[in-house]
């Protein structure tokens, strides 16, 4: 069997709130995500979901423990290598789309590839166009992103997260800012990608409706995993 996409091994994270006082937010987490899993991360506010997402997203470093992404131990990498690994292996979808307003939809989708390669080339726009087509956004591809609706913007953001064919997509409340219809469209797209390309998703959500549609639900309370179960309903539906 192939390497798991993500392995957390006794990951702790604490913040110094004025030495010597330290607050431990995550108390030694173990987690393994296999390729093609669609996982919901749930938990109350302040449980450490965002902190965990930042660690997994390589935006922050754990205080102790190991974090292995696609067989590569991220805890031993320097900043430059971490940035490279992040750009190539992880896609981000945020609650607020966070598109770059100065660019068109197409350019936003191509942006991760541009950052990785340095110069624009034909291939990255071909890839961006394909994604926009798939996301039914072809008509708006040359519009500045500011002129798109909220749902469209979030779809562009999802397309952007997939541009580099990442092993893992991290979504932080991806539909939190959308109406039900747009949320469904966006979520369906993520599932479609997950099923077609076996891309692994880790979705932080407060929305039980959304969580119920994931394969696996991991619950984080006060910095500890309190539950990690397959979502039976989805599994049965799939069978």
């Amino acid at each position: 069997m192939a390497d798991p996409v993500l392995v957390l091994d006794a990951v702790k994270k604490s913040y110094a709130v004025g030495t010597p006082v330290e607050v431990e937010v995550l108390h030694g987490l173990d987690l393994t995500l296999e390729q093609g899993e669609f996982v919901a991360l749930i938990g109350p506010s302040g449980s450490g979901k965002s902190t965990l997402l930042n660690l997994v997203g390589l935006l922050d470093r754990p205080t102790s423990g190991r974090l292995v992404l696609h067989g590569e131990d991220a805890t031993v990498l320097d900043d430059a290598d971490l940035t490279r690994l992040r750009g190539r292996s992880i896609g981000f979808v945020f609650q607020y789309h966070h598109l770059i307003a100065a660019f068109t939809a197409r350019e936003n989708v191509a942006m991760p590839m541009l950052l990785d390669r340095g110069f624009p080339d034909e291939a990255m726009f071909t890839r961006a166009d394909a994604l926009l087509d798939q996301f039914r956004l072809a008509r708006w591809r040359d519009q500045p992103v500011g002129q798109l609706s909220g749902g469209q913007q979030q779809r562009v953001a999802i397309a952007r997260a997939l541009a580099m064919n990442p092993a893992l997509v991290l979504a932080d409340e991806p539909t939190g800012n959308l109406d039900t219809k747009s949320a469904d469209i966006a979520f369906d797209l993520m599932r479609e990608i997950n099923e077609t390309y076996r891309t692994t998703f880790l979705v932080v959500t407060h929305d039980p409706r959304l969580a119920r549609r994931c394969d696996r639900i991991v619950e984080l309370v006060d910095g500890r995993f309190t539950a990690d179960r397959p979502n039976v309903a989805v599994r049965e539906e799939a069978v």
Partner: protein
Amino acid sequence: MRRWLPFEWIAAIRFLLEGRMQSLFIVAGVTIGVGVIVFMSAMLESMTANMMRRILNSQPHISMVPPDEVARPLHDAALNLGTVQRRTQRTRSIDQWQAVRTDLERNPEITHVAPVVTGSVLASRGVASRSVNAIGIEPERYFAIIDLPGNIAAGQPRLFAEDVVIGTDLAKELGVEVGDKVRFTAASGTMMTLTITGLFDLGNRFTNLRNVYVALRTGQALLGLIGGSTAIEVTVSDVYAAEDVAKVLQATTGVGADSWIKTNAQFFNVMNIQSISNTTIRLLVGLSVAFGIASVLIVSVVQRSKEIGILRAMGASRGQILRVFLIQGGVLGLIGSIFGSSLGLVAIWGFHAVARNPDGSEFFPLIIDWWLPVLAALMATATGVVAAVTPALRAARLDPVVAIRG
């Protein structure tokens, strides 16, 4: 997106275009700053060149003159001299001036050498008389140093034994024209009547009034210095090195050497003060331009911190973010300097066209070096990049976690 542009340039230009108002205002600020600098520089250069042209029009770079005569008191134990009076300086020839001339002609830094004989005489016509400075010259040599033929207002620069060329202002005062005769009387009583063959205008009223040119032998006869030369006029290849050359010449020949820099010390003083104040103003304008660019970019970094965070999350390196903002600073400086140079040059042309002497001639000759706008562009671009360092570092150091959460 231009295919040959790297990400940093694309992002920098897009960010500048997106913040259109900010960019426009700061470019206007840079334009005015660079415009002022270009205008002042061109002005100072033109003025300096004009003044120098006027001075060197009627003066050699170096004048070799006989050393001062000094009194040598006899030392006598019985006689204690309270004061030793300075000797009067008579008009006299340089000792062995032909040998000195030969020496000078061999010097590689010297381009032209012309012996002259000068002394005060009285020019009179009827009841009018003026004290003037008679200069006896060898025309072919002297004209290489002072371009008299090029400044002839009437007649021609012909100097035979009975000829004289005088300035336009002296001609006015004496009421004479080309072809008239003027009587010259030396202090010794020697008197000559010479015919005016030409009137010159060297652009300096004092010179036009005081100098009269005669043939070398005529001058020698008039001043009672047969076969003598009271000064050897010299031009050098580098006018600004004249003083250094003069010092060397004085030491090697034993003859006094006065450079134009020494005789025009006041002019150089004024020019120095001008240049210092000009540099100070340019420096301050440059600083204010730099602060302007820096403040606009700092605001831009704050406004874009979320976007910067997202770019970092998507794999942008700190270096890429740093360069995006450095480039913005450089581009603002460059564009501002292009407009600013144009503005400054148009302003100086306009000023040159409007500022006229009462007689309608130009107030100063316009001298604009092609490198002035090029230098301004380089300096402004560098200033922009330097000004962008602080904001760019700030952007590059943003923690993506904090930036995205905002």
